[in-house]
């Protein structure tokens, strides 16, 4: 009932305003005139109003108008979409002809909003817009990457891998479980826009506040991204665009040792630890008598000796290459008044800088629209299909190739060059892969080049279709009924083969093949009724509708067999494996959603704007009692610059303030099965060989889930205040928003006590979180003779705070940014998501802080009076802060040591045009975020596995001669004071600024291109990621990861430099 009450009140409000303000005329003088557009002729539909009053008129098809004004002091304001407003004082004139200039800063542009579109100047909600040119400026195949730095309030984090999808976060985080925005592609909701061809996109609107987004109700809380694809237009237009280029992996980490240095480090460790594989003489120098057989021997007082078989491998160089990128798009657009179409074909190939990795992507699109029955009915469809093949690698994991670069010793050859050697794992002959199996103490890493080479025949395919059809019926002028049916469908397949290995210290002893396949999809039916009417000075845009959605339909399967007779790629089918390893499948539990919604935007005199939205959603994810949620919002805008008191302020052309309040929901945080208790079983979790069969286990069951039928919507309450202004002859535009977003009833699955068993704990509505921030955009556009300039600055901040987790749960640790140190991210009440938590290193211990004592007959190093007691404390090792001052370092002394959330992110876009040349630069940056550099665990501590080590450990580590070093002593000691604890040693500043794009283009002069029968031809050269300014020591400071545990670098696949040549050709 609530919904109808709200609607009724709103309708009454509108009605009362119409009655009270619609007929307030004063009559003194009649003005006529004609409005033309610069270089275009008469302009119909122009609003002509008397400033400061409600009097107004609209120009007819010939651009003429007639209007009565109060007197000579009256000022007429001419406004029309796409043109700069113009104000003229009446004076003695009775005929006023004006010419309007084309709008520069897009204030009049039409913005696609929830279920409708509006002029930007009418907006009361906070909406960001990304232009198509911006989407294709950086040569990415993935729309998510293209969003980075293009609109305020949106933080995008990606990596350099060809098939990667960037993480998109709108205004911070509002859930522990899922913060992905809702994507709507031509009216079809989808979780995935990665497969789309950026070249097909006409516009992207990002709905940020409740005023804009809450019409999507229960799915809007993480923001909504509305994607509209290109439509056909009259005439024929053929465009071919392409680019081709090279990606440069760069030099890789610059702080790793070569083989000689590694040997030196080994001997530094011996020296520091007072150990040696040789008997030492009186001076502590090694004699020739061995006590064990080291890899690196000692040849007197000179350098350590390196075995003859050694290599000096730079593993980054070994796994990377200069890689090709190319892209071709062909689009055909055309039509008549009654039939229009847009068709496009895209081919894209990107090889990864990691050897053998690649992505190939093929997209087709066909959009069409037919108008008939005297323009009363429109029927259309949008369709796109993508087929892609991927061969990628894991990222931000200990075993991923980039991570192995930090972990494999340089002495190990990529390939053995002979002579034969009876190694630890295998007899190595020339041509064999090299590896940690050559001799003991080379560590446990596997040869990444061997792994990648063996994996080159693995294949992963994916096919996706997104499409919709619609019918739009104009019932009467301004009242349209529209029905849309759409959906997505996807299907994929993968084949991966595991080889027997011989070259490593830990080898794979059997081969196997794994195949997996999946399909899935979703559909939506939407019916809307739209009223778009102007009554004099009153403009009403209202839309109401019903929607039904079913999503998350699908199944997947994977199976594996082992013991293959041959590794021949042609032999790789499941049935050829002698041994069944596994055979599994999943059926997804889909979610259904039924919704009613209503929105009304009212504007009076183009100056006072009000908007109200309400949506009621019912979702199958919740039990019957909590299934429905109602999400209202209100917003208002006031164009101050049109008020009479603003007349004197001529340098401000337009100023609008606006505000909104509303609620939005989120249901993605919870599994569709959360409401049900369940039992189940799998071989690994609950089967047992109760009959002693040896090669099979009997099926058994266990409780798998504790259900919660009472879970309900996460709700967030959002407030937004902002203003938009243009000034200095519309050359400068500023848009600024402040927002506050509070999520309550946040779904969280508190860990149950162990005594409850290990069935999945249910999600309950218990937590709370808030975000505040400022989004700002500044733009400037001008032209000086032949030199044109267009610049914009996009600025995003969010401050995230966890307000509550659960009763008695002040925090939870999450993730394994460091697989060896445990969870380094703590999500705690009063702190932002994913903050780093551990011991704070205040310095390294110095010898002066210790004395020796005789304890049980053993001479023991003891901390001096006043030095807190710390396990493993010794000179040259970490000295942790005694936070609680109890004189002892305990877990209670841990504190927050870093925050991966940036203070702000920004994008700067600069475009210069001079005659036929254009130059574009795009800079993106992040400021104030910390990084947990997990790689240091491996390379800055000798006992953190016998892998690669850092130059710092050799040259800058603590010794008695280098007491002021910050890198701990090179020692084989592994304890609380060295490498077993999470501490601030790993924290680094993660701020960076990156030149994402620098592009120089030249458009062939029309007089030349027309001779060869083409409309236009532009060629360009481009450099991508040409430089990154950062203090961060790792490969790339741009780090993604789970929202509860991000900002850790465990070998990140870097964004790399690209050098591109491209052209765009129009026929």
């Amino acid at each position: 009932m609530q919904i109808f009450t709200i609607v009724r009140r709103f309708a009454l409000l509108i009605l009362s305003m119409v009655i009270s303000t619609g007929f307030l005329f004063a009559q003194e003088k009649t003005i006529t005139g004609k409005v033309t557009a610069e270089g275009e002729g008469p302009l119909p539909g122009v609003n002509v109003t008397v400033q400061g009053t409600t009097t107004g008129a609209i120009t007819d098809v010939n651009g003429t108008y007639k209007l009565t004004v109060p007197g000579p002091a009256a000022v007429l304001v001419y406004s029309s979409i796409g043109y700069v407003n113009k104000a003229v004082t009446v004076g003695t004139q009775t005929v006023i002809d004006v010419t309007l200039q084309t709008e520069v800063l897009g204030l009049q542009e039409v913005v696609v909003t929830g279920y409708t579109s509006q002029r930007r100047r009418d907006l009361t909600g906070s909406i960001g817009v990304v232009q198509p040119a911006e989407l294709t400026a950086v040569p990415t195949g993935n729309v998510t990457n293209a969003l980075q730095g293009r609109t305020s309030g949106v933080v995008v984090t990606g990596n350099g891998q060809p098939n990667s999808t960037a993480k998109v976060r709108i205004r911070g985080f509002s859930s522990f479980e899922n913060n992905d925005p809702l994507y709507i592609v031509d009216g079809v909701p989808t979780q995935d826009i990665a497969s789309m061809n950026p070249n097909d996109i006409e516009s992207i609107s990002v709905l940020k506040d409740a005023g804009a987004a809450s019409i999507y109700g229960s799915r809007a809380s993480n923001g909504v991204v509305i994607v509209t694809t290109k439509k056909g237009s009259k005439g024929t237009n053929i465009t071919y665009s392409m680019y081709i280029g090279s990606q440069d992996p760069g030099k890789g980490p610059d702080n790793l040792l070569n083989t000689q240095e590694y040997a030196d480090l080994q001997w530094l460790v011996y020296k520091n630890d007072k150990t040696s594989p040789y008997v030492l003489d009186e001076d502590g120098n090694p004699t020739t008598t061995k006590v064990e057989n080291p890899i690196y021997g000692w040849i007197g007082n000179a350098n350590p000796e390196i075995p003859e078989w050694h290599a000096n491998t730079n593993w980054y160089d070994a796994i990377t290459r200069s890689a090709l990128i190319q892209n071709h798009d062909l689009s055909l657009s055309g039509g008549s008044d009654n039939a229009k179409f847009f068709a496009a074909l895209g081919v894209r190939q990107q090889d990864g800088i990691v050897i053998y990795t690649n992505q190939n992507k093929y997209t087709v699109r066909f959009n069409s629209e037919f108008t008939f029955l005297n323009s009363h009915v429109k029927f259309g469809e949008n369709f796109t299909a993508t087929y892609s093949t991927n061969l990628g690698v894991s990222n931000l994991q200990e075993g991923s190739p980039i991570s192995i670069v930090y972990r494999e010793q340089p002495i190990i050859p990529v390939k053995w060059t002979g002579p034969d050697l009876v190694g630890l794992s295998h007899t190595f002959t020339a041509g064999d892969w090299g590896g940690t199996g050559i001799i003991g103490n080379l560590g446990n890493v596997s040869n990444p080049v061997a792994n990648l080479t063996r994996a080159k025949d693995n294949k992963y395919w994916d096919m996706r279709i997104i499409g919709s059809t619609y019918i739009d019926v104009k019932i009467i002028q301004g009242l349209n009924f529209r029905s849309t049916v759409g959906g997505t469908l996807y299907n994929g397949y993968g084949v991966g083969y595991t080889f027997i290995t011989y070259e490593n210290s830990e080898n794979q002893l059997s081969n196997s093949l794994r195949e997996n396949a999946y399909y899935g999809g979703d559909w939506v039916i939407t019916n809307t009724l739209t009223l778009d009417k102007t009554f004099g000075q009153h403009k009403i845009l209202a839309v109401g509708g019903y929607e039904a959605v079913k999503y998350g339909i699908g199944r997947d399967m994977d199976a594996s067999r082992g013991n293959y007779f041959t590794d021949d790629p042609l032999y790789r089918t499941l049935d050829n494996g002698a041994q069944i390893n596994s055979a599994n499948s999943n059926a997804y539990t889909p979610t259904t959603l039924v919704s009613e919604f209503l929105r009304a935007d009212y504007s009076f005199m183009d100056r006072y704007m009000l908007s109200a939205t309400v949506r009621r959603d019912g979702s199958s994810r919740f039990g019957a009692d909590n299934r429905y949620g109602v999400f209202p919002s209100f917003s208002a805008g006031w164009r101050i610059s049109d008020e009479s008191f603003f007349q004197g302020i001529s340098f401000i052309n337009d100023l609008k303030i606006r505000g909104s309040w509303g609620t939005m929901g989120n249901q993605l945080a919870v599994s569709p099965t959360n409401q049900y208790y369940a039992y189940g079983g799998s071989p690994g979790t609950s089967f047992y060989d109760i009959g002693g069969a040896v090669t099979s286990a009997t099926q058994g069951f266990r409780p798998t889930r504790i259900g919660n039928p009472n879970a309900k919507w996460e709700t967030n309450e959002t407030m937004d205040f902002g203003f938009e202004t243009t000034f200095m002859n519309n050359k400068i535009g500023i848009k600024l928003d402040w927002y506050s977003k509070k999520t309550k009833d946040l779904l969280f699955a508190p860990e149950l006590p162990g005594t409850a068993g290990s069935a999945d704990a249910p999600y309950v509505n218990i937590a709370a979180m808030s975000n505040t921030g400022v989004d700002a955009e500044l733009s400037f556009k001008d032209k000086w003779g032949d030199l044109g300039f267009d610049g914009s600055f996009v600025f995003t901040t969010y401050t995230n705070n966890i307000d509550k987790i659960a009763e008695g749960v002040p925090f939870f640790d999450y993730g394994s940014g460091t697989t060896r140190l445990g969870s380094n991210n703590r999500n705690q009440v009063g702190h932002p998501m994913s903050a780093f938590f551990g011991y704070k290193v205040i310095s390294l211990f110095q010898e002066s802080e210790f004395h020796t004592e005789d304890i049980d007959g053993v001479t023991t190093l003891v901390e001096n009076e006043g030095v807190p007691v710390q396990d493993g404390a010794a000179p040259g090792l970490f000295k942790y802060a005694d936070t609680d001052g109890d004189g002892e370092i305990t877990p209670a002394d841990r504190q927050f040591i870093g925050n991966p959330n940036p203070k702000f992110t920004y994008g700067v876009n600069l475009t210069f045009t001079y005659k036929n040349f254009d130059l574009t630069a795009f800079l993106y940056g992040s400021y104030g975020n910390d990084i947990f550099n997990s790689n240091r665990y491996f390379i800055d501590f000798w006992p953190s596995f016998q892998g690669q080590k850092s130059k710092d450990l050799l040259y800058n580590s603590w010794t008695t001669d280098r007491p002021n070093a910050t890198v701990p002593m090179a020692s084989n000691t592994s304890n609380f004071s060295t490498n077993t604890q999470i501490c601030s040693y790993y924290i680094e500043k993660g701020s960076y600024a990156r030149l994402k794009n620098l592009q120089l283009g030249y458009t062939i002069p029309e007089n030349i291109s027309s001779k060869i029968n083409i409309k236009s031809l532009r060629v360009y050269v481009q450099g991508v990621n040409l430089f990154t300014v950062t203090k961060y020591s790792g490969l790339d400071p741009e780090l993604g990861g789970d929202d509860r545990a991000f900002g850790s670098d465990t070998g990140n696949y870097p964004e790399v430099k690209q050098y591109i040549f491209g052209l765009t050709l129009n026929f």
Partner: protein
Amino acid sequence: MLAIIGIWSSCKQDFLNVPATGSLDEGLLQSTKGLDALVVGAYSMIDGVADLPFSWTPGGGIWETTASNWVWGSIRGMEANKGTDGGDQPEINPIQTYSETATNYYVNDKWREVYEAISRCNSIIMVATKALDGGKITQDQADNYIMQARALRGWYHFEAWRMWEKIPYMDETTDPATVTNTEDVRPQIIADMTEGTKLPLNAGEIGKFNKTVCQVLLAKALMQMNHDYAGALTLLNEAKTGQKPDGGAIGLAPTYGEIFAIENRNDIESVYTVQYSINDGSGAINAGSGEVLNFPYKSGASPGGCCGFFDPTQEFVNSFRTVGGLPLLDNTYNSDPVKNDYGLVANATAPGASGVVESDPDFTPDQGALDPRLDWSVGRRGIPYWDWGLHTGADWIRDQTYSGPWSPKKQVYKKSQEGKLTDITSWTSGYTANGYRMIRYADVLLLLAECEIEAGSLDNARGYINQIRARAANSAGWVKMPDGTFAANYQIAQYTTAFPDKAYAEKALYMERKLELGQEGHRWFDLNRWGITVNELKRVLAYEKTMPWGDKLYGSATITDKAKWYPIPQRQIDLSNGKLEQNPALK
């Protein structure tokens, strides 16, 4: 259009009811078929390993929770050390240096594993009760399901008790949110385990508990928790002539070493063996994954391929020294240590610093008198290692300077079994069908001997101990060189004269358990039962610290009374909102 909307509204409720796919609700399990599967699910935890997210490692809770207790029983009891290198599984480091804190995740994982097992037992009881109420199973069937569930529940609780002592007892009605750990739960544990002794002698399947198994387990619990030797004696005397769960006979296997061969896992010696299955679709989780780290470290040329954990201590090895065929009960064996190859280049050809193969240094294994069981319990250089050839020394060890020169052996498979009785679906062959011998017949006899000593019947005790020694003395089961000669100077004899007093008998018994059941996860629990944990471990630690690797391995480790229990996991105390308390002995 209105009509469409009308139809829509009426369909809406149905449209929004989406049942869960791919899982079972409780109603579907209220049948003998469903309950049988729940019972299997409860037994599946007996290996201590399930692919569940116990800890921060995905699918964590493997080696720290496994039934063989190699960390909790053997390493903590100082018959083995962690092995490998310092940075690998560092949570074990404090456990072997008696300095683990309540936040050590190994302790938490073990806790969660045991209580997951208990919750499965309770789900059997709940579903069986409902099935009975609903007339879907008979009273007899319900009784049998509940009896099995209680037997298992008792055992799992006992496992928890001997780790932590102050544990909450969970039955099918206990609320996990309010349960405390301050009460004495031993009566409930004994009641549950006693219920198991009513099970039939033949349980029908080798992997189930039967009367005999439950009698032995109850006896163990009575001895460990209550020092109730008289009660245990009665149970063990009956169990001694019992059966395996599948009805097979039990007794001592004729020779010692072959007990640990995979093919003999369900042989006569096996009162209860945890069944490991290979290539069963579990991704090797059921294939002894808890012991997968515990193999020598020379990929391809020695068994398993990974990971060099669980290396016996020198002190343990020395214990096998015999004089006149008898062990040195006064621990003087440490003054004549068994010779090791620490610091020597391996016997296999290995490239030296100059890149060329160096000549092998001579190494002759220990020539002194040794108990033949040593070479089935420990891998040592120059001695045949199943059919893998002679142990070649340092190149089978991941890092001698950290873990010493000895290798584990009892869970290792034969070379001829690779790929046949080892799993091939995962990354190493260390996943095997070599089920953990949870109760060996020798264990039953030694428990009996222990009870007899307490009862004052020293001669009976001597008889049992001699039975064990006689079996070990069967030279058919001694390790032999390829030429058929014995691999070492094996000398073993029985105690031919009466034990002079109870103290001597105890020493003989303690030593016999160490020699016979070494590396099988019992040691620390035994020391606790005998009440000698602190003194004995202090003695061993002092000795091990003098080893060349001792400093690195044990550092400044000291032993206090806290070594007798593991801390209640801090995570569990936190999650209980103060209902659970730390064991006062550890505060």
